[in-house]
């Protein structure tokens, strides 16, 4: 546990943590020594030898003074270490996260990472204060006393030493029993949490179906289940904790019995016995308390594990040299037999497209042309777009821009080439203007406004009280989905990069804005554009259409060529045309 704790810190930051641990152990040992000194003091007092007693009290005072100094030092140092660790963990997480592939940041992960970087970090940095300290005190101090006991009476020391394994076994058994129920508890809690959110999110449907009044079975069951598991945990947990208490008690009782027998047999001095009993009874409590600490320890361990998991996720390898683009200023894109599959959990909650892999995709997108990606959901359209932006690295083959493998282009250079407009848009809690300016921080105000106008953000600015300087709230909460999309489009327009990647999910726009936005996209001429196309207009006007299915481009050509070929694309086109002409109700006399 402690080793794992140190492993999330790098060497420089782990040093103070180690130092703190050393101070703690030091404190615990001194603490034990003070108590051991009770033996000679009592012996002298009982013997009526006051001057010897005063000598020992002076020694005890000296050790106590040192103990206090160490206590003070570890307390101050511990605080300092806590803050240092907070900063170090934030730094490490920040540095590492910044180097992870974009593909890593699926919606689900981002939420968890946010929680990890705040609550998780506090939990871990709180570890020394809340867990390690009591644990060290509960183990090291009694151990010190047991060792010191050797100097006074080896038989009593032996009784204590023999007690240790009994306590240890009791501790292990108890922990194991507790862990078993904890898994069940976690599972039941997760099930209930999921059902609760489901219940809230589907309230309209559930009510309309009469399921809110008569109770939603699945949720009721989850509550019931959580209750049952809780009951079982108590049934297992209470005896488990008692078991541990009993094992500690057994040792105490044994020491009592052995000691008293020896004292009665006059082979052990009464002062030694009494002092010893004082020590034994005093340390029952901290030891028993460790059983419950174990549970808290595991909870913190979970956060620790998750932080480690993030830190151990391999970042995208950066090219060693500062490789220039061989293609000069011509940024055509080439997929050379690209194979790619998502790992096990893959895109998490990613779109249906996200699951598909590419199975040997090969095509070229000439510089300065517009290519429309078309195909059923799950055919790999989003994957193609994301591989260009290097969300992930390919498994086989290569993606090249201007003849250079994207893996050989430094990330910053690659990103400078691409203006992405993807479906998941994030806005910062800043003004509209500042959010657009992220596209190109050096842009003039006029340029920002112009980009905003082209993406029809001007209309949003007009509506809001502070115009372009209106704040959009955390994650852009003030704006609707369509409005956020327009801001993101403005960013891309402002960035003015040679390659435009566009996921055309502009369905949230009303017809007027849609037309306007289409027109402004058309003005971005001379760019290499790759569009995941839904709109017929975009498709027809594209220089090249790639029809994807099952991760492979099955047809490539212009609209006319593909229609003439009368294949997959032609069928798709006929379906879409029929859909376009659809009327919800065929007018009975409406015409």
């Amino acid at each position, binding site marked *: 546990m402690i080793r794992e704790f140190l492993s999330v810190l790098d060497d420089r930051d782990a040093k103070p943590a180690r130092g703190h641990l050393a101070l703690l152990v030091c404190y615990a040992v001194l603490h034990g020594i003070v*108590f051991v000194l*009770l033996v000679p003091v*009592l012996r002298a*007092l009982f013997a009526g030898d*006051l001057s010897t007693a*005063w000598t020992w009290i002076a020694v005890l005072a000296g050790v*106590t003074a040192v103990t206090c100094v160490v206590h003070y030092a570890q*307390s*101050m140092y511990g*605080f300092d270490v806590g*803050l240092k660790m907070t*900063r170090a963990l*934030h730094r490490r997480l*920040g540095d590492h*996260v910044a180097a992870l592939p974009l593909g890593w940041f699926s919606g689900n992960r*981002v939420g968890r990472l*946010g929680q990890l*970087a*705040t609550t998780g970090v*506090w939990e871990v940095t*709180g570890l020394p*204060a*809340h867990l390690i300290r009591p644990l060290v005190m509960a183990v090291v101090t009694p151990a010190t006393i047991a060792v010191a006991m050797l100097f006074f009476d080896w038989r009593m020391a032996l009784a204590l030493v023999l007690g240790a394994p009994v306590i240890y076994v009791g501790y292990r058994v108890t922990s194991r029993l507790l862990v078993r129920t904890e898994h069940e508890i976690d599972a039941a809690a997760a099930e*209930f*949490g999921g*059902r*609760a*959110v489901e219940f809230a*999110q589907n309230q309209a449907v559930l009510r*309309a179906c009469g399921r809110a009044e008569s109770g939603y079975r*699945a949720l009721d069951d989850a509550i*019931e289940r*959580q209750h049952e598991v809780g009951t079982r945990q108590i049934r297992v947990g209470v005896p488990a904790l*008692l078991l541990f*208490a009993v094992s500690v*008690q057994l040792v*105490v009782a044994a020491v009592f019995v052995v000691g*008293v027998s020896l004292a009665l047999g006059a082979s052990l001095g009464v002062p030694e016995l*009494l002092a010893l009993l*004082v020590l034994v009874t*005093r340390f029952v409590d901290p030891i028993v308390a460790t059983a419950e600490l174990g549970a808290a320890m595991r909870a913190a361990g979970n956060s620790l594990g998750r932080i480690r998991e993030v830190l151990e996720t391999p970042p995208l390898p950066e090219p060693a040299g500062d490789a220039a683009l061989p293609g000069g200023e011509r940024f055509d894109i080439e997929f050379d037999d690209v194979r790619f599959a998502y790992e096990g959990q893959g895109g998490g909650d990613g779109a*249906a497209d996200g699951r598909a892999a590419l199975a040997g995709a090969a095509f070229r997108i000439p510089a300065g042309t517009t290519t429309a990606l078309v195909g059923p*959901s799950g055919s790999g359209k989003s994957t193609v777009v994301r591989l260009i932006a290097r969300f992930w690295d390919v498994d086989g083959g290569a993606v090249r821009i201007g003849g250079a493998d994207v893996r050989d282009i430094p*990330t910053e250079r690659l*990103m400078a080439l691409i203006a992405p407009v993807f479906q998941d848009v*994030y806005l*910062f809690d800043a003004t509209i203007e500042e959010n657009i300016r992220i596209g190109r*921080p050096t842009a003039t105000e006029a340029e920002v406004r112009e980009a905003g106008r082209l993406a029809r953000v001007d209309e949003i600015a007009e509506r809001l009280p502070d115009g372009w300087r209106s704040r959009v709230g955390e*994650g852009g909460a003030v704006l609707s989905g*369509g409005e956020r999309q327009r801001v*993101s489009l403005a960013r891309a327009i402002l960035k003015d990069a040679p390659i435009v990647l566009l996921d055309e999910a502009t369905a949230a726009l*009303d*017809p007027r804005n849609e037309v306007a936005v289409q027109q402004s996209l058309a003005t971005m001429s001379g760019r290499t554009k790759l569009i995941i196309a839904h*709109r017929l*207009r975009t498709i027809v006007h594209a220089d090249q259409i790639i029809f994807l299915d099952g991760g492979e481009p099955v047809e490539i050509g212009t609209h006319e060529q593909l229609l003439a070929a009368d294949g997959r694309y032609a069928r798709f086109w006929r379906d879409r045309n029929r859909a376009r002409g*659809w*009327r*919800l*109700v065929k007018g009975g006399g409406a*015409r």
Partner: protein
Amino acid sequence: MSGEVEAEPSGGAPPPGPEPAAPGGLKELIAPVKSSLVLAAVLAAVGAIASLAPFVAIYELALELLSPDPDEGRVWTVVAIAVLGLVLRFLCEGTAFAVSHRADNRLQAHLRRRVVAHLGRLPLGWFTEKNAGTVKTAVQDDVLAMHHLVGHSVVEFVSSATAPVAALLYLLFVDWRLMLVTIVTLPIYAAFYVIATRKSGENVAQYGAALGRINAAVIEFVQGIAVVKAFGQTRRAHERFTTASDDYVAFMEKWISPVLKPQSVTSACVSPPVILLAVLTGGAIFVGQGWVRAVDLLPFALLGVGLTAPLVALGYTGNDIRSAGAAAARIGVLLATPTMTDPAEPRVPAGNLVEFDHVDFGYGPEKQVLHDVSAVLRPGTVTALVGPSGAGKSTLASLLPRFFDVDRGSIRIGGVDLRDVATAELYRHVGFVFQDVRLLRMSVRDNIRLARPDADDAAVESAARSAQVHDVVQALPRGYDSVVGEDAKFSGGEAQRVSIARALLADTPVLVLDEATAFADAQSEAAIQDALSELAAGRTLLVIAHRLHTVADADQILVLDEGRVVERGRHADLLRANGLYARLWAAGEHDVVEVGA
């Protein structure tokens, strides 16, 4: 949320904070388990007193063994009492633990049921995305936070308070002068605690703010990283994040340091070694003066050093109670959210004529959305709502299934105001299919027959067939028994069709429909359209229209602009009127004309 996460400085007692204001809701919320808690508290008190037995026994043992002629039988009796005391103590503590945890477990289930029952009666409009998160926090996290209070804190508080008090009383009985020597350092700590509490209280708000800032910076950094990377701004965003982290650390240093030093010193004053030193020094003097026997020092050495640990524990318990209070307050707020009033004397609609009668509505006083909207939906006819985005189409449509109640005017079905119709009765008349579909994590069959749990398999299949989704379901590993989200993973369009099948089976005469449903998934658009056409046939329809041509044949088109009906009529009439509708149509045609090849 900012105030919730507490990063406590390492070492020593938790930072003293202000005492929590007694939350009114907490008492009421834990009322159902009050008797159990009292029992647990009594047991904890008995256990705490029993925990003194071994210490007292050692003293008695010493008296006996040091006497000139120890009585062996009496010695063993004392040993037995010591061991029995321990047994009694752990039994009491174990039982108290079991009782309090059982109470807590019961309370958790009780509170969850209570909250869920309350949720079922809140206005539908309350269930926004944000509030779905609130629900989870309330029923899961907040209920768990109260777990600490009920399951642990009560017992811990009682034993932490009883043990030192009982010990002090006993010591007082043994020798009051030595008792005073034992606690000589306590006032130093107490004085510090009072001062520090007052001092740090002033900064608690600032602490919350500092914590809030770093949380915001972390969340922004993490959530925005994709954007930031894509636009080559990683370094800058990273800087903001580390700056926030540095600021936080600097603030903590400034805030805690002045308190930390005296705290470290004073907590050393009450540490066991110091108390032991005080007892032995004072004791040696007392013995030298002949005031007490040497053996009388034993109980002070034994019990004196154990006085402080419970004090520290009390500090922690205070923190637990604070956060439980905050959690209880949040649950209280949720439970206090006013519910929809169910009609005292529900009336049954006569027929399915729908009337909007001078309806005003807004999401709060500042944001009025609809102004004086009137319309009549005759049975079996189609009414389309059109207008630019933000005109109030979706809002108007959501009033009919009573997601919200109108501010002024009324909406009637079959002549009866919606507010006078019992909920179950209303949903027998009004159904809806919106763009935002989330299926429930249950079998596909149960999803389809959600509104009619008694429907047989044939009815379910026939609905699925009409909704063009039967083949999709058949292809699943367990067919209709496949569980959504587990072995049934639907694309957006397929999920739409399942929800249409559900509406078909529910078979309500009035239906509210979002036409955007049809293009939620461009690839299965045609199939969804067929399903929707099937669903629309023969019902009273209120359609939110985004693509005008799909509703060109509607019996009635209401053109909304900024929450008012600015035009109404049929397609041809509206085109002739050459107003807003005509302009919208022209913008839509633009697309049609260009692809018309």
